[in-house]
């Protein structure tokens, strides 16, 4: 017989604030998904399985001692690189880019895995070199960052690659990179931007151009942005009501269940609904910042910051994309968009943060 104390013991490792926020965001996401999927239950049911699976892994990870996570980090990194190479040679294409891999049991996107693995790997490296912080160390970190970056860019998946490198750069920054380097980095990036522009694929250039005036090529590059803006704008203050989004129900909005699910939500629940759900995301963000500020060792702090940035760059890029601030890059909204890899990865990153927070320090266990 299971006692209540056993449950308490089991759930002790879970952070109540985070779980509370998650329940609200996930259930809202399911409500939006039901509508976005044209009231069919296919993706809705599958998404529930994703969530259950994600929570299962989250529980396990949150109870896993950081020492073990720390120990396995380099292996996971190497495995991740292996998967990326596998995608390059064996993966299959969706919408013109090769991001998926089928490992029999399930299909998944290895690039998403790096949202977990890269922060851990960089944190692991800085933890090991704790006593010899020098520019050289930062440079080596940059190489750890570059390998998956280049492989993902090659798929091509510019959005994920950029978000990944952003979280990596933030880790290097948080690890104490001197302000001088940061300044130079900025200058070099700006100076090399014409070169970067030239090396972009034509469709990527169009997407950036269509940001300036999406209506210029309304049926081409600007189409998705326009339809998304129409969904948002026509939703207004209070929205059109659940299942009443004409943009979605009449299939004007592309990728309604994945990248553009928040546009569906905004059309149906309006600005009030947007503020409500963003408040929960902010609460989640602040809670994690608080947790990080209590962490003691380099690995925990840097890994948590990296995971947090991975998560919230996803949120910001997705919201920026559907509101026309950023080009269409194909970034799901964490906890909201339909998709197994993204859901599990997002939930697991919270699980890791909980584990690191609960144990406070690598050695404490």
């Amino acid at each position, binding site marked *: 017989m299971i006692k209540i104390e056993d449950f308490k013991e089991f759930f002790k490792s879970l952070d109540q604030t985070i779980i509370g926020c998650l329940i609200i965001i996930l259930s809202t996401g399911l409500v939006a998904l039901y509508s976005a999927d044209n009231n069919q239950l296919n993706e809705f049911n599958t998404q529930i399985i994703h969530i259950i699976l994600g929570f299962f892994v989250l529980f396990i990870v949150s109870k896993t001692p950081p020492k073990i996570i720390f120990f396995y980090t380099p292996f996971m990194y190497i495995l991740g690189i292996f998967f990326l190479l596998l995608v390059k040679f064996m993966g299959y294409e969706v919408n013109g880019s090769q991001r998926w891999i089928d490992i029999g049991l399930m299909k998944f996107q290895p690039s998403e895995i790096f949202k977990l693995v890269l922060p851990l790997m960089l944190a692991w490296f800085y933890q090991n070199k704790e006593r010899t912080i020098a520019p050289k160390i930062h440079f080596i970190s940059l190489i750890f960052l570059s390998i998956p970056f280049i492989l993902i860019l090659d798929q091509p998946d510019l959005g994920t690659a950029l978000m990944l490198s952003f979280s990596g750069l933030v880790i290097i920054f*948080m*690890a104490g990179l001197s302000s001088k380097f940061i300044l130079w980095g900025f200058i070099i990036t700006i100076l090399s931007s014409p070169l970067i522009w030239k090396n972009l694929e034509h469709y990527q250039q169009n997407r950036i151009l269509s940001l300036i005036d999406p209506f210029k090529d309304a049926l081409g590059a600007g189409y998705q942005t326009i339809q998304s*803006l*129409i969904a948002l*704008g026509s939703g*207004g203050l209070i929205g059109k009501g659940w299942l009443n989004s004409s943009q979605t129900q009449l299939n004007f909005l592309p990728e309604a269940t994945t990248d553009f699910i928040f546009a569906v939500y905004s059309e149906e629940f309006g600005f009030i609904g*947007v503020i409500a759900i963003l408040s929960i995301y902010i609460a989640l963000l602040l809670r994690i*910042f608080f947790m990080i500020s209590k962490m003691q060792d380099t690995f925990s702090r840097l890994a948590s910051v990296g995971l947090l940035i991975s998560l919230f760059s996803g949120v910001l890029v997705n919201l920026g994309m559907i509101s026309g601030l950023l080009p269409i890059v194909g970034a799901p909204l964490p906890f909201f968009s339909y998709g197994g890899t993204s859901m599990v990865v997002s939930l697991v990153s919270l699980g890791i943060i909980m584990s690191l927070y609960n144990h406070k320090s690598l050695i404490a266990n």
Partner: protein
Amino acid sequence: MQKNQLKFIFEKRLNALSLFILLMIFIVIIKFFYIQIIQHNYFEKKSNNNSVKVVPIPPARGIIFDRNKRILAENKITHNLEIDPSKKIDIEKIANELNPFVPITKNNLAQYQRIIKNNYFSSTVPIKTDLTEQELARFLTNKYLFNNIFLKTRLKRHYQHKELTSHVVGYINRINQRDIKLLTKNKRLSLYRGSDHIGKRGIEQRYENLIHGIPGFEKIEVDAKGNIIRTLEKKEPIHGQDIQLSIDIELQKKAVDAFGSRKGALVALSPHNGEILAYVSQPYFNPNLFVNGIDHKNWNILNNNKARPLLDRVTKGLYPPGSTIKPFIAIAGLENNLRVPPFQINDPGFFTMPNQSKTFRNWKRDGHGQVDMVKAIAVSSDTFFYGLGLELGLDKMNQTLKAYGFGHKTGVDILGEKKGLVANKEWKIKNKKERWYAGETVITAIGQGFTLVTPIQLANATAKIALPNNQNYISPHLLLNSNQLKQRNDKLYTPPPNKKNTMSYIKEGMEAVTDSGGTAAFLKGGSYKIAAKTGTAQVFGLAGGEYVEEDLPEHLKDHALFIAYAPAKKPELVVAVIVENGGSGGSAAGPIAKKVFDHYLLSNQ
């Protein structure tokens, strides 16, 4: 130490990082606010445009009836094969594919190209109109082969009396650039959404705003692929009003038959109320040719024809009035106390102007002997009117002519009516750069000067003699429906008051025209009396030479004119006839008028 320092940097930067992310979220919120609150109306409209399409439902044109409710213009259901020209299509290829099932001729293709050039309101353009039942059946069974060909059921205007009503009822044609401009100017363009046709001539043109109607619409919701999901709203069109004309199609037919192959015009109207019963302009054309856009071949035949079948002679044909002007000159004389019976002159067969050697001949060489006003009208004495005209002077003659409607539009409900010409001295200086000669006043009195009249003006003026009841005068018109009378623009003006006996002398004279000795004596007898005036208008300046009708080519022969009313004592019908190149007025035009009177007065009882 280094470790603590790093921790310090980390904490400092963690705060900065949290602020940075919060700032980013804040920017996103601002952007959402801007889109969802500030730009809400704009995007709401966009959203509706996305999913809601408004499809106009064109109204059916009103039916046009004659005075006895016989149909003159109606709508027939036809089936067309149509194509959406906004889609990229190879018309030749489609024609070839269709050919085994529905033959597509060169004419069909030419018609398609013609329509597409002037297509403004239709989403689809016909490649084949008026499918036969076999063609319809063949197309329907093979419909699956033709994804981008639409079978449309449309209403096609049909004029069942064809040539008989070509000038009065007119026709509709497809809307062109000029129509668009006009409709835009009149703020009526929105009424034509979904319509292809507009009235171009005759009554169809004049009462377009009554006949056309108001389009309805259907608001439909479509998905991203354009499939119709459901109808959100439907407003039925208000069909065009039916129009009843004063025309009597039987009488019209009689008049046309009486003309035979001759050119000219005839107007028959009721002096009581100005209702036009027959409106004939010869030659004519088949108005049905125009309905879907006339093809080049037929257009060239009509347009290059020297007989000018497209000219509506009733309101736009300008003719010298010849002797038909004399009753009105006579009115001017009597009103000015000149030649009041029993005053007589001697008509030696010519008139010499005082102090000049210039001589004007009478049409009858040896003259008419002793002539008073009544006889002058009956025998059409030129000599009598030469002298009268000179004595009256141009201004007094013109005053009366204008009072009887010459020189300005009668206001008949047909667009483009000509004013004719009542020339004065200023007109001549302006247009001929020459002063007015007294001799021109003399010939004006017998209708051979610069004066030009239309057949409708002649009928209108004759009606004023037939029934000189100034108060009840109503100008000629075609529209009969009493609830639409406001649309008609009747001109209600009053001729100057006549001296007590003026009209009785004029009437006596016109009655004598059909008595023995009159210029239309052959019309005497019968069960009713016709009062008339004949006229002959010179087409060819004889320059003193001899006019021998048989020797002249057809197109240089004189125009024959004839104005009449009957029964003389109780006028019921006024008829004005012009037979172009008909020769002498009485013999050519009189019998035509007689047939119209016979039909109206004898068979209608």
